Structures are given as C-alpha cells and as structure tokens.
C-alpha cells in the first residue's frame, strides 16, 4: 500500500481572496455560524446541515474518548 506522510495538507478551506488554507475543527463546524480567514480577515458565513452537525458532534466526542484512552499501561 502506498502511504504518504503529509496528513492534513489537503484539509481545510482555501480562502477565496488570499488563498490561505483555513483549518477547521469538527467543533468549528458544529458550533460556529461564520468563520474568518486568519490571513485577510474575510468573514465567511457557514451553512452546515443540522443532521450533519449531530453526526459531527458524535464523532467529536468519540475522538475525544480515543484521545483520552490512546495510551494505557497494564
């Protein structure tokens, strides 16, 4: 299987004015209604469907649980 190292280069939204890659977290998509470009401060309104928000919230909680239990020792 071909694997590659860069993991999050392709994720995010390219700012339509300055081409800066705006990074998102799941909670950004769940909680926020708009997001600003950290480079040019362009404000973008976001419309995330409600069912997707519920799904994202579940995934976010699951991810948090994985992070908490990612290391253990017997």
């Amino acid at each position: 299987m071909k694997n590659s190292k860069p993991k999050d280069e392709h994720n995010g939204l390219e700012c339509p004015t300055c081409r800066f890659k705006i990074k998102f977290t799941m909670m950004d998509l769940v909680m926020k209604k708009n997001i600003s470009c950290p480079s040019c401060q362009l404000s973008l309104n976001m419309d995330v469907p409600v069912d997707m928000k519920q799904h994202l919230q579940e995934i976010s909680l699951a991810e948090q649980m994985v992070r908490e239990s990612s290391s253990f020792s017997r």
Partner: protein
Amino acid sequence: MRKGLYSTGATKLKNIFLAPLEAVIQADIDLSERITQFIMNYGFDNWHEKGKMPKLKMVSFSYVNDQGKIEVFSLPVLSLIQLPLLRIKDAHFDMKVKMITVDIDEQAEPPSLLDEDADLKPKISQRQSGIKAFLTPSTSSNMETMKSNMKVRLNMVDGDMPGGIIQLLAMMGEINNIKEIEL
C-alpha cells in the same frame, strides 16, 4: 491422536510468533473497515442505497466580494476537517521463549475388525522430531531468565495516510460550486 508436549503448553515456534502478528493484522483490517464505514457515513448521503450514486455531503459558504456581490460556494465536508484515521503504526512484542526439541509419536490406530485390509497393511507408528517452544515468564529473576533460551522482539510498522485517501481529498478540494448573487 498425538503424544508429545502439547498438554504442557508447548507449541510450534512459528505459532508463537504468528499469533500476535495475526492479531495485529486482523485488528488493522477491522480498523480499516470501520474507517471506510465512517467515511461513507460522514461524507456521503444515501451511500447504502443500491443502484444510486452516493451524494457528497456539502457545506455551504457565502461571503461578500469586492464588487459587493454575495458569492456562495459549497465544499464536501470530507475535505474540510482532518479525518481521524487511526492506524497501527508500530507494534512491539517482547517475549521470552524456551525452545525444546521433542519427538512426537504418531500413535498407531487400533485394529478394526471391519477393515479387511488391516492385516495386509500393518500400521507403523511414526516418530518425528521437531522444535517446540513455550513462552516463559518475563521477570527480573535470574532463575526465570535462565529458563528461557531465546529473547524475541518483533516489530510491526504501518504508514500514515493511504495514498488513495490523499488523492480523494485533493480531488474534493477541487469540487466547489460557486454562484454569484447580486445584493
């Protein structure tokens, strides 16, 4: 029926190495299946309906451009956030093994009255030699350490993100529907 050291817990050396490796590979396969299911659930609508092309779940964005017009565009949700692609990157197994040479007798089958050819072909017990091993306790005690004659370290390493997923994400970054709305 087999004689030998099976009842004492000794088994073929390759089985001792194979068991943890197989378990890790199986865990990785299960994990991949779960991740695939997650991507399909999270990124696509109606993906389980047969005969229909799955539809990408999109997030819409809008902003006011330089000319005072509202521009609306949408992007697949899969391209927005980093997917939690958990993989088994490195698995270490430390074990101490005691190897022993054993002779295994293949016991002759009891003669059968129904078998007409039994007298013609007498069953001979076969003796085989082989190396068998069992795991020994891993303690700091010298006595326990002496019981093992082989220290084994197996390493398994897996990569990061599969190339196919990277290509999929790159392709999704290109998919956007831009509309211009006049204020």
